[in-house]
């Protein structure tokens, strides 16, 4: 009996001690695939890799992977395309009947703020970056944040020229990285003017902080180019002109020889291609990272797309014969007319290129009656000559705007954004129709009671 008692004692002590001593060690299991936040932002390299993460987020399909430009075009290009896609949320954009639960509208919102939060992390921790690269790092974060706020304001707020931007609502301004959820985690919508101003502040600061060397990262000219686009959207032609001139006079970029070369697709084989001499800023797409959303919807299945967008033959009537730019509109193997600019599945997603800057300068000079940098006609002739067209002797604003439409078709969301700026009827709706403004995603309103819905949308 004594022996048995000692056995019991042994077992009891053994199991209890074994289990207890196991506890803390066995319960403190750390992640393998991720790291804890306190290990993530300590060194200069840490902060810079967060900036790379911001570029990574910017390449998402519903933001600068293409959604930011494709979706406004879907809302405004009824005269140029036939939509035959099956994603009903996109069909609703073409039909100008967007619903508050539209998944693409929500995804754009969420992914835009993911870029902004990454940028906010960089900006808040920039003091940790080595002095030599500190400004450039901060400038790039400000560039991404400013550009994103500009595009958010255009999509979720009324047009700049529609009523009073200082009272029209755009999106919440979040300028600090997310570290806890607190009372200030539920921001209200700022006005269109406030958001544009934040974009201008960020881009202007970025312009001064970033360097001028050309790579696939943003540089000072990228900021100038986006500022030129922004000021043009505001109708501030003088400022747009100044920014356009900065880009052109920098001399770092040049138009490619053939229009089609701006959309490289070597050997018709899907592959990553570095930026062309004309690209000022483009999201890099490789087999392993990034998405070219334009390809998804414009390219036929032969080139990895869904082929949801067909170009109307009537749209080609806007071109004159001999225009090289017609070379990117062809019938596919089934006789369907398509835009071939995006046939390379791993082609970079364009954000802004030099031709647009010439067109902005020409338009601004034309409107202001000036010839800053060059005359409008010489800028337009640069574009025309590259397209294999003869030079014009004189040029009107209408001609400039037409050239802009032909040159940049399907690239930058201009069917909607220019339509609003120029106060044109857009697919049967007035330029300032509520239907041409995205709703605030319902899921966001549910999570943040301080948000109000855009007019024209019911919960």
């Amino acid at each position, binding site marked *: 009996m004594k022996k048995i008692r000692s056995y*019991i004692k042994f077992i009891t002590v053994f199991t209890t001690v074994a289990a207890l001593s196991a506890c803390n060690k066995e319960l403190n299991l750390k992640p393998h695939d991720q790291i804890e936040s306190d290990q993530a932002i300590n060194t200069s390299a840490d902060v810079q890799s967060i900036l790379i993460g911001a570029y990574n987020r910017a390449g998402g399909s519903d933001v600068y992977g293409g959604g930011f430009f494709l979706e406004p075009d879907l809302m405004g290009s009824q005269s140029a395309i036939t939509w035959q896609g099956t994603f009903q949320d996109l069909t609703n954009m073409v039909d100008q009947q967007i619903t508050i639960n539209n998944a693409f509208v929500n995804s754009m*919102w969420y992914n835009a703020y993911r870029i902004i939060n990454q940028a906010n992390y960089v900006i808040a921790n920039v003091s940790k970056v080595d002095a030599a690269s500190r400004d450039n790092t901060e400038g790039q974060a400000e560039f991404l944040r400013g550009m994103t706020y500009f595009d958010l304001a255009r999509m979720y707020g009324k047009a700049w020229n529609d009523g009073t931007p200082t009272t029209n609502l755009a999106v919440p301004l979040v300028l600090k990285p997310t570290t806890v959820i607190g009372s200030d985690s539920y921001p209200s919508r700022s006005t269109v003017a406030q958001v544009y101003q934040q974009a201008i502040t960020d881009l202007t600061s970025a312009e001064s902080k970033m360097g001028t060397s050309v790579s696939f990262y943003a540089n000072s000219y990228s900021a100038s180019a986006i500022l030129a686009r922004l000021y043009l959207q505001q109708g501030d032609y003088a400022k747009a002109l100044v920014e356009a001139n900065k880009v052109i006079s920098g001399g770092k970029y040049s138009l490619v020889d053939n229009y089609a070369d701006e959309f490289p697709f070597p050997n018709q084989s899907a592959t990553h291609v570095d930026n062309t001499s004309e690209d000022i800023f483009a999201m890099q797409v490789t087999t392993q990272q990034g998405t070219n959303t334009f390809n998804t919807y414009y390219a036929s299945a032969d080139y990895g797309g869904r082929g949801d967008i067909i170009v109307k033959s009537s749209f080609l009537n806007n071109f004159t014969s001999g225009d090289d730019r017609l070379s990117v509109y062809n019938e596919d193997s089934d006789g369907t007319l398509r835009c071939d600019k995006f046939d390379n599945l791993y082609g970079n997603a364009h954000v802004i290129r030099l031709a647009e800057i010439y067109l902005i300068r020409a338009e601004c000079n034309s409107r202001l009656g000036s010839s800053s940098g060059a005359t409008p006609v010489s800028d337009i002739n640069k574009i025309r000559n590259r397209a294999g067209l003869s030079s014009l002797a004189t040029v009107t604003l209408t001609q400039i705007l037409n050239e802009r439409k032909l040159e940049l078709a399907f690239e930058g969301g201009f069917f909607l954004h220019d339509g609003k700026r120029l106060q044109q009827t857009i697919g049967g709706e007035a330029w300032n129709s509520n239907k041409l403004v995205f709703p605030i995603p319902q899921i*966001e309103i549910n999570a943040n009671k301080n948000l109000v819905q855009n007019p024209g949308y019911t919960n």
Partner: protein
Amino acid sequence: MKKNLLTILLLFSCISFVFAQNRVITGKVTDQKDGSPLPGVSVTVKGTNTGTQTDVAGSYSITVPATAKVLVFRYVGFKPAELPIGGKTLSTQLEQDSKQLTEVVVVGYGSQKRQSITGSITSVSAREIQNTPVTTLEQAMQGKAAGVNIQANNGKLGQGIKISVRGTASLTAGTNPLVVVDGVVINSGDLSSTSAATDPLADINFNDVESVDILKDASAAAIYGARAGNGVLLITTKKGKNGDAKVNLNAQWGNSNPARHREFLNTAQWLKIEERAGVGAAKQDYAAGLYDTMADALADYKSYVEGKFTAYSAGSTDWTKTNTNWEKEAFQSAPQAQYDLNISGGNDKTKYYISGQYLDQTGMLKGNNFKRMSGRINLDSKVFTNFDVGMNLTFNHSLNKRVDNDDSFGTPLQIVALSPVTPVIDPRTGLLSGSLPGSASSYPVYFNPLLNVDNAYYHTNVYRTLGNIYANWQIIKHLTFRSEFGVDQTNQNEDSYSGRLVFRNTSQPNGTGENTNTTIVHYTVNNYFTYKNAFGNDHTLDATLGTSYEYNHYMGNDIQGQQFPSDSYKQIIDAAVKSGGYSSQTEYSFVSYFARANYAYKSKYLLSVSGRTDASSRFGANNRYGFFPAGSVGWVLSEEDFLKNSNLVSNLKVKASYGLIGNAEISNYAALGLFYGDAGYNGVPGQRFYQLANPNLKWEKTAQLDIGFEVGFFNNRLTAGFDYYKKNTRDLLLDVNVPQSLGIATQTQNLGKLYNQGFDGSISSDNFVGKFKWSTSFNIAYNKNLVTYLNGQVITKNNINYTREGQPIGEFYMPEYAGVDPANGDALYYLNTKGTDGKLDRTKTNDYNKAQSINAGNPTPPWNGGITNTFSYKGFDLSFTFQGAFGYKVFNSGGQYMSANASNGFDNQTVDQMSYWDKPGDITNVPEPRLFYANGTSTSTRYLSGASYVRLKTASLGYNIPKDVLAKIKLDRARVFVNAYNLFLITKYKGWDPEVNSDYQASNYNLSVDFYSAPQPRTITFGVNIGL
């Protein structure tokens, strides 16, 4: 062979002890029914541990002390007998006891007699599930356990299946019950690399299962503490019994077909509605000012639509030449075969059960196939009289040839979108329509899923070893110690390749492949004491105390490749571009202490208390430990004097329990603030903000009350059980939606309350006994689920199911469809906005965005039930089970394409769309067809319908070949049978199957959504069962 086997087995039984002999009693035990010998009957001297078992001839020989007075004979399924010892021989007949009140039920860390249980436990026995012609255990259990709701996502083989015990107790944490096999927690999480889950129990050969005991209330489940909030499934596998080796061979062969078809437009109808859709769209375009004249618009659309007709008719302008029924093309008549062999036996010292299975099921969906090879050895050996060891070990290999997810153009049933004018074989090439070479990028209208059958594959091979070793030591009389170590090791390889011909589905012109390896190792170590004693005649005590440690390690890696030299190359080593890949690891652990005591006074008054303390690596250091106590009481009225001698009431017990159970099924690092290094850009490494820390994260807790009774009449020929319960869950582990302007979408917090309330009951009855036997068992369960607090959160992922305060989980929430405007064919919706008087504005609007969404129905059936009837006469037996679910709705998410009045593309339409609005004054529910104008296709009650159903789930008819015939061919038993599964279905639901939840989006709160989901198969098999 047999001899060799026994020799090996004998090696396991080592030492035997010899006692002082007094006298020897011999005898034979037979079945009262037919006089056949009963092997394996336990024969013991009353009041002692001295005992033996009968041999294969039913004979026994026992040495008893001189003082022995009475022998007790016990055999599972028979009433025990106690006989006084007279002479040197003592033979008896045992009477079958269909109610098995003496049945032993497996409970957590032990077993208990059914009669003394105060918790709520439902058991499913081997007899009820064996040889069901299905793939997984859950499918075989459907309709057979009260309060256990089992719902398949669709009819693909081995796919995810939802199993909920007494409702759904959580929102965004796991809701699957804990699965314990032979005392060891197994990994029951989905391992599929796609968003469509596979069933982790598909690797288990359910013909090895002796019983499944489902712990439903807190009293039964709290011994599993934090893991038990969703109920516990205790699976016990078969053990050998005393006696000569028994060899059992089963073989069955059969065929599957879809249980239901759905009708789509034929060529003439399709041409008509699409032509009309072009007219409808032209009218809209003209009105929007996109054309100068109406005639221009009409002409433009006519040419566009007719161009498509020609294109989709394989280039033929004779559009009416072909009339393909594509829906039928998705299916095939699917053969299956299953072979089971098991050998079991044993002696006083050692018992063994060895089995093997080969299962080969072809899916009724083309391209779908499931194979399983399984082996098992269960062994017990008494090393010393007070010490036995054993093991349960199974090796399984399954191969699931999967088909695409429901939301892929390549899933078999998306074939219904193809045009009836399109021939299956393209006459221009003599190949399947959509094949290369040719204009395959936009012909047919969508990717042809039939191309996947020969040009793409997705093979999931799972190699799974599940086993445990254990030792039981009887330290002193009444006190035993058990130590067990269990491992569940799963190695899964998913290998897929999609060739050139399916480029339209993959966006890859030169082939794309992916190979994913997943290894999960799950260890469990249990150590516990059990004390069982009776004090005098009145008091019995049964107590358990122990510890448990679990550790789970996931290791995975993946590689993706593109650009293969030809389709003959399929492995990624042959790919020119390695386009992606990862390696990944996660771990979790649980450390637990548990205790339980069951006390009975005079077998009348029952009391049970239990508790468990759990700690898990998943929670923040601040709240790592949780304590989960439970208690229950029972009163066996039939043991009281006033009922003891009743001829009517043979059993009556009332019981009540209350306790706390928990849930910890969240991601492994949900409490930590995390950065992810997966955010590189153009080859430069990058990291991203990923998750916000919540160091206060703690257990989700469910308090459950259960009140019930069990009753038996007429010597238990009629028995019934009934339980009322209420489960209140609080501190929900919720993925709370936070403002996305923070750069994250959700954070796991303890927020929210919900409850499940209802009852489950069962009745079983032996309607006829004697030569013609008829028995019926019936079960029914009602569950009301309600979310009571979410701090105003609205949880939705698919914008169809919404989870909000005051509503059941996943309530359908959408604008209410109001039919069609007779004047212009516009789809209409009710405004349903609340006026100042509180009344709903029932004005109709054609502006979808003006219509207020309404609570449109519950996606979870509150009522579930099943009824099984079993007949036998002479050698024949017949059994069939009806299963049903009632009071819920299904949303056809594919309706926006297939029942869209041709307003959302060229998809073929369901036949009901032909009653479309055509001209002013038409009264119909189907709006005007307007090509790509999405007229009425937005999410609304238009696509919602009632889905209650009853189906003949299983049926089997068998014939036992008479013993005298068998004797001549030297067989012990032989039965031939026909099994059927899903023979017919009664429902008003118009789709393929009301038991549906589209695989790619199925979750706790995305419920009952149909999206090209395959129906359940109807399977008929023929088989034989032979015993040697």
